[in-house]
């Protein structure tokens, strides 16, 4: 028992792994860094499916701020968000082979998986405690800091923020409640005293507007 642990503790994992990482996502100001592309992530995820720890490290570095930030927006609790993010990446390690490039990008696959877990967690928490005050409303455009520019450029964030700003208040509200507060569209309609058809069409129109604005095909 002790031997296993000693072995684990003595191995300098981070250093060893960083050497082999091909995508410089942790670059310093002096280093040339490039944006991680969708194709890079698809390739990394395929390597993760073959149990490649270096690829897993690179995938984590390239996506962790998106995943954690989204999970934290849903859960609004550092501890829960860290636990859920850990569970998400363990699930990635375990199920990467189920990723099918034909069904979408690796990033969308990862964030869908992460959002599913975050929503499951927030619904479980709410069912257990009904602590509504903790899951109060926030705005969709809340800025966040401390994200490496090597992973997400300021330009990209501004573009997304601008596109979110282009939605109508009603569209944004529906997406906020459903996506970031984990409500079902039926709960959204109850919250907004709007009928189901209206809520569905606001969500759909809002998503179409976002998609067009962001140029997602």
């Amino acid at each position: 028992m002790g031997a296993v642990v000693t072995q684990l503790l003595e191995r300098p994992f981070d250093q060893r792994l960083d050497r082999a990482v091909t995508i410089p996502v942790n670059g310093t100001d002096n280093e040339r860094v490039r944006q991680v592309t969708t194709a890079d992530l698809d390739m990394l995820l395929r390597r993760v499916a073959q149990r490649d720890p270096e690829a897993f490290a690179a995938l984590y570095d390239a996506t962790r701020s998106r995943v954690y930030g989204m999970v934290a927006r849903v859960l609004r609790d550092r501890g829960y968000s860290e636990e859920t993010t850990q569970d998400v990446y363990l699930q990635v390690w375990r199920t990467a082979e189920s990723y099918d490039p034909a069904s979408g990008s690796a990033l969308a696959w990862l964030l869908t998986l992460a959002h599913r877990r975050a929503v499951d967690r927030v619904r479980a928490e709410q069912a257990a405690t009904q602590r509504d005050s903790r899951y109060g409303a926030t705005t969709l455009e809340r800025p966040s800091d401390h994200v490496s520019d090597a992973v997400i450029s300021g330009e990209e964030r501004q573009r997304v923020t601008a596109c979110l700003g282009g939605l109508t208040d009603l569209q944004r509200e529906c997406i906020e409640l459903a996506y970031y507060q984990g409500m079902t569209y039926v709960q959204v309609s109850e919250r907004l005293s709007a009928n189901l058809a209206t809520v569905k069409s606001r969500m759909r129109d809002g998503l179409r507007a976002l998609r067009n604005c962001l140029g997602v095909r």
Partner: protein
Amino acid sequence: MTHSHDSTVGDDLLALAVPYALHALSDDERDALESRLSTAGLAVADAFYDEVRAVRETMAVVAAASAEEPPTELRGRLLSAVANDNVRFLPPSNRRRTAWMSVAAALAVGLITVGIGVSLRPPAQTPSTAEQVFAASDVHTISGAIPAGGTATVVFSRDRNAGVLVMNDVPPPALGTVYQMWLVSDSGATSAGTMDAQAVAPSTTAVLTDLGNSKKLKFTVEPGSGSTQPTGQVIAELPLI
């Protein structure tokens, strides 16, 4: 007219593509929708899943706006968990099991500050409870600080009806008392074992079997070798959700 009927059904289903893609359906609604889609005809199903794909791609891009760095310790914990996974050098039959033993061991190490053993043995004929928990698709991690010092972390799976508890740096119970763990459900508390001073220091793990309908794991201080129902001071509670 058949055509217009199909169109209506198709429109009806397509209107749910966005809520489906955003996980904004209850589990029952989602199951019902998927079953309707499976019989709806190829054109409708294709249009539906195409819209779902587009919504998910869009939200993946939107995630740039909420990006936030996770705590730095998480990286080391995850990389330790997978880096010791030498499955590529093992025959396929041993793969999963060995991989998950390593992940479990490494995760536990990540959670502790003083090196201790994790009671995970090399692959046996059947995976241990801990291995099964770590390999479960619904694995969850909950940790909490204990006011007197140290932390308790439970990794559990409802599917496996079991969990693994790791306690780190928890001060020993006072002389003549033990820490006792309780699985608490609506119908009351069931003992999940005790820990004396020797078992606690500096770290310990325990396997929790039969989680049942329990909603939390409670820790109390009990006299002697433990009680049949919680009587002493509650030192920690971890929600099992």
